[in-house]
C-alpha cells in the first residue's frame, strides 16, 4: 500500500486529481450537466494514460461533480445533480437570508468529510461491505422506496396533506411511459416521445428552477439578501464551529451515504434525503429545517459525497456499478484490460490501491478548490444584476434539460412542468414531494412486481414480502418515521400534563 501511496502522489497524478476536481466542480455546478456526463466526456482521454492515472482523473471529476451540484442548489435553488435535492431545502433559504457564503463553505466541509468516510470504507472494508448490495433483493428495494416515500411525512411536517398530494402527483408522473417490468405503455397518449417516461433531471430543473425564475422576474427585491456591501471571506471559522456542533449528524450522514451508495438501484438523491430526514427527526431544533438550518446542508452534503466511495464498492468488488457514473468507469476499466471481481483486490492490488488513494487525495483537494470556486460562484450570483441573472439562469435551464439526452422534447417538458410547479407552489404544494415520488415510484413499482413474480415462483408471496429480516427492519423504520410526529406530540403533552 505504501508503493501505491507514492504512486498516487506522483506529480502527474496529483495534477490530474486537482484538475479533475476543479473541472468536475464547475461541471456539477451547472444544472443538468451531471456527473455522468462529466465522466463520459473524460473517458476517451483516459485511454491514453496508464490505468491508475486514468482512474484517478475519472474519480476526481466524479467527486468534484457531485460536490459542484451544491452551488446551484444553494444559490439558485436548483439541484445541479439529483444528489443535491436535499441540499436545496435548507441551502437556498440560507442564501436567501444572506448566508449563502456560509452555506457554500459548510457544504464544502461536509462534502470533504463525507467523501473521506466513503473512500476509507472503500479502502479498508470493500469486500465485506459489498455483500450489502447482494443482500438487497427486489422486495428490499420495494420497502426501501416505501420508506423513502414515508419521509414525505417528516419533510412536510405541518403540511402533511399537501406533502402527500405532491408525492401522489410525483408517483403518477413516474408511471408515464413503458413500464420496466411488464412493458405496458401508460399515459403516453400515442406520443412515442413519452415512451421513455418523464426524465428526472429535466423534471427537477423545471420544478425547482422555473418557480425561482418567475419570482425573480415578478418580484422587486434582490435574488439573495446581502449582508453588507463588503463581501466577507469564507466564514470558515463560523462554518467549522457549525460542523463541530453537528459532528454526530455529520458522521451518521456519511455512514448513511456510504451504505446507500453501495445499493446499485438507490443513489445519491436517496442518500441525501434519508440523511436529511434523519437529521431533522433527531434534531432538537427540527422546526428550523426547511428554513435554513445548517444541519440540513451538512447532512445532505456529507451523505451525497459519501455515495461516491460507497458506489465504487460493488463496482470494483462485484463488477456491478453502484451509480450511473460507476457504470462508465467500469466500462473504462474493461477497456483498460482490468478484470473486476473479488480477485481484483489481490491480483491487481497496485492499481486499485493507487486509485483509492488518488480518490482520497482528490477529496482532500476538494477543500481548497471548493472554497475558492464556491466563493466565486457566490460573488457571481450576488453581484450580477437581476436583468442579467434571470436570462442567464433561464439559458442554463434550457441547456441542462437538453444536454442529458440531447433531446429538445425534454426542454418542453422542463418548461411545462416548471409552470405547473409554480402554480402548485402558489397553493402550497412544494416541489420536493413531487420529485421524491418521481424518483421512488419506479423503484417501488419494479421491486413490487419482481418480488411478486419471484414469490409466486417460490409458491409463497406473503413470505417474500414479510418474511425477510432486512425487509422487516425497513418496515419497522418506516413505521417509526410515520409515527414519530405523534410520539413527539404525545411526549410533549405528557410533559405538559406532568408540570401542571
Amino acid at each position: 500500500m505504501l508503493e501505491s501511496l507514492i504512486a498516487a502522489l506522483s506529480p502527474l497524478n496529483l495534477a490530474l486529481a486537482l484538475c479533475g476536481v476543479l473541472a468536475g466542480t464547475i461541471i456539477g455546478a451547472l444544472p443538468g450537466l451531471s456527473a455522468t456526463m462529466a465522466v463520459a466526456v473524460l473517458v476517451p482521454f483516459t485511454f491514453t494514460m496508464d490505468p491508475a492515472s486514468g482512474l484517478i482523473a475519472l474519480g476526481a471529476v466524479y467527486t468534484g461533480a457531485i460536490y459542484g451540484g451544491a452551488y446551484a442548489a444553494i444559490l439558485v435553488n436548483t439541484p445541479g445533480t439529483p444528489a443535491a435535492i436535499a441540499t436545496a431545502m435548507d441551502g437556498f433559504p440560507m442564501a436567501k437570508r444572506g448566508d449563502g457564503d456560509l452555506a457554500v463553505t459548510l457544504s464544502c466541509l461536509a462534502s470533504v468529510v463525507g467523501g473521506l468516510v466513503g473512500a476509507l470504507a472503500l479502502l479498508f472494508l470493500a469486500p465485506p461491505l459489498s455483500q450489502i448490495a447482494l443482500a438487497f433483493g427486489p422486495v428490499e428495494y420495494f420497502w426501501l422506496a416505501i420508506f423513502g416515500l414515508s419521509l414525505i411525512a417528516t419533510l412536510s411536517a405541518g403540511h402533511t396533506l399537501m406533502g402527500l398530494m405532491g408525492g401522489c402527483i410525483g408517483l403518477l408522473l413516474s408511471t408515464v411511459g413503458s413500464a420496466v417490468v411488464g412493458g405496458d405503455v401508460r399515459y403516453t397518449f400515442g406520443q412515442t416521445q413519452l415512451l421513455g417516461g418523464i426524465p428526472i433531471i429535466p423534471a427537477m430543473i423545471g420544478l425547482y428552477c422555473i418557480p425561482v425564475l418567475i419570482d425573480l422576474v415578478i418580484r422587486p427585491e434582490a435574488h439573495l439578501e446581502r449582508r453588507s456591501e463588503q463581501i466577507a471571506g469564507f466564514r470558515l471559522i463560523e462554518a467549522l464551529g457549525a460542523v463541530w456542533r453537528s459532528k454526530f449528524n455529520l458522521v451518521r450522514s456519511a455512514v448513511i451515504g456510504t451504505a446507500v451508495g453501495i445499493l446499485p438501484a438507490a443513489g445519491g438523491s436517496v442518500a441525501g434525503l434519508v440523511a436529511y430526514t434523519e437529521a431533522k427527526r433527531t434534531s432538537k431544533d427540527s422546526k428550523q429545517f426547511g428554513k435554513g438550518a445548517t444541519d440540513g446542508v451538512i447532512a445532505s452534503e456529507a451523505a451525497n459525497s459519501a455515495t461516491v466511495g460507497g458506489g465504487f464498492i460493488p463496482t470494483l468488488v462485484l463488477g456491478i456499478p453502484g451509480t450511473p457514473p460507476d457504470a462508465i468507469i467500469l466500462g473504462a476499466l474493461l477497456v483498460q484490460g482490468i478484470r473486476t471481481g473479488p480477485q481484483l483486490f489481490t491480483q491487481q492490488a497496485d492499481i486499485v490501491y493507487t486509485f483509492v488513494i488518488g480518490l482520497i487525495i482528490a477529496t482532500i483537494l476538494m477543500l481548497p478548490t471548493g472554497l475558492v470556486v464556491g466563493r466565486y460562484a457566490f460573488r457571481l450570483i450576488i453581484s450580477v444584476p437581476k436583468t442579467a441573472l434571470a436570462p442567464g439562469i433561464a439559458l442554463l435551464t434550457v441547456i441542462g434539460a437538453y444536454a442529458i439526452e440531447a433531446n429538445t422534447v425534454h426542454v418542453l417538458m422542463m418548461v411545462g412542468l416548471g409552470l405547473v410547479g409554480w402554480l402548485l407552489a402558489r397553493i402550497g404544494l412544494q416541489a420536493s414531494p413531487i420529485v421524491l415520488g418521481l424518483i421512488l415510484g419506479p423503484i417501488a413499482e419494479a421491486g413490487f412486481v419482481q418480488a411478486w413474480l419471484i414469490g409466486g415462483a417460490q409458491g409463497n408471496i406473503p413470505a417474500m414480502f414479510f418474511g425477510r429480516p432486512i425487509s422487516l427492519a425497513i418496515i419497522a423504520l418506516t413505521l417509526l418515521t410515520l409515527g414519530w410526529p405523534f410520539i413527539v406530540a404525545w411526549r410533549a403533552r405528557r410533559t405538559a400534563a406532568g408540570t401542571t
Partner: protein
Amino acid sequence: MQRLLTLAASAVVLLGAVQTANAADYPTKAVTYIIPYNPGGESDVTARFQEGYFKDVAGQDVVIQYKPGAGGATAWAQLNGYEPDGYTIMNVNFPHAILQPSMKDVGYQTEDVKPAFVFHYTPDAILVRADSPYQTLQDLIDDAKANPGATTFSGSGTNSANHLATVRFDQMMGTKSTYIPFKGSAPSMAALLGGQVKAAMSYTTQGIKAGDQVRVLAIATEERVAAYPDVPTFKELGFDYVAGAYRGVTLPKDAPQEVRQKVSDIIGQINANPDFKKKLEENGYVVTDIPHDKVDQFIADRRAEYASAIEALKAAK
C-alpha cells in the same frame, strides 16, 4: 433567357459533381456516432473500442454521443430526422430493432434503421452463481422440467433480448420458467449474485464482469469463445441455438448508397484489425462481418429466427 438556362443547367451539373465528390471524399470532417443507451454498456464499450481505430481507417475523428431512452427506441425513432450526409451514424441492435416495433408502436419500423454493417454480437449465455447446485445445463433443464414455473431467470427488461432468449429457451427445452425483468444488466446481475433468482439469462460479457462469482452453463455461439474455453456451446449439447445481441452501425435511410457503402467499408476495415478483434474477443464479444450488401439477408434471417418466440411474447401479453 437561353443563357440563364445554360447557367442554371451548368450550376445544377456542378452542384451534382460537388455532391458526388463529397460522397467520394467521405469523410472530410468528424463523424458523430450516436449510442442509444447510457454510457458504460456493451454498445458504448464497443463503440469506444472502434473509436481508437476509426481515425486510422477513415482519416477523421468520430465523436460519441449518447441518446438513451426506451431501450434504444428513442434514438432509433429519431434517426431519419438527421441530415442524411453520413456525418451522423448510429448504433443499432438486434433483436431489439425487430422486437420493439412488433410489440408496440415505438415510432420506427425495422426497415427505418437498417444497418450498413453488423460488426459483432454478444452471445446469449446462461449464468448461475458459483455455488449453485446446477453444475451443467442439463441440471437446470431437469429442475425446470420437474418444477414448472419455479425456475427463475433474471434479465434486462421486458420484451427485451434477454426476455426473448428466455422464451426461446423454454420453447427449445419444453420447460416453463419464470422470467424476472430488471432495469438493465447491473441489477439483473446483482439479483443473480444475491441469490434472488436461480439463473440469469444474460451475455458472455456480463459473465466476464462478474469473474469467478458465476459459472457459465452454456453459450449460444457456433464455436467455443476464447474467453471461456471450458464452457460448452448449446450446439455441443445438442441444441441448435446460436443467438445474442447483434450490434451494427446505421445511418439515415436517405443517405446516398455511396456513403452507406463507405461507412460499411470503414467499419469492416476496423473489424479486420487483429488488435481490435483480439480486444473484443477477450471481453466476450464475437466479431461478425455482415457488410452493406448482406444486411437484407441478415434481417430476413433474424425475423425468421425470432418469429415463433415473438408470437409467444404477444400471446402472453
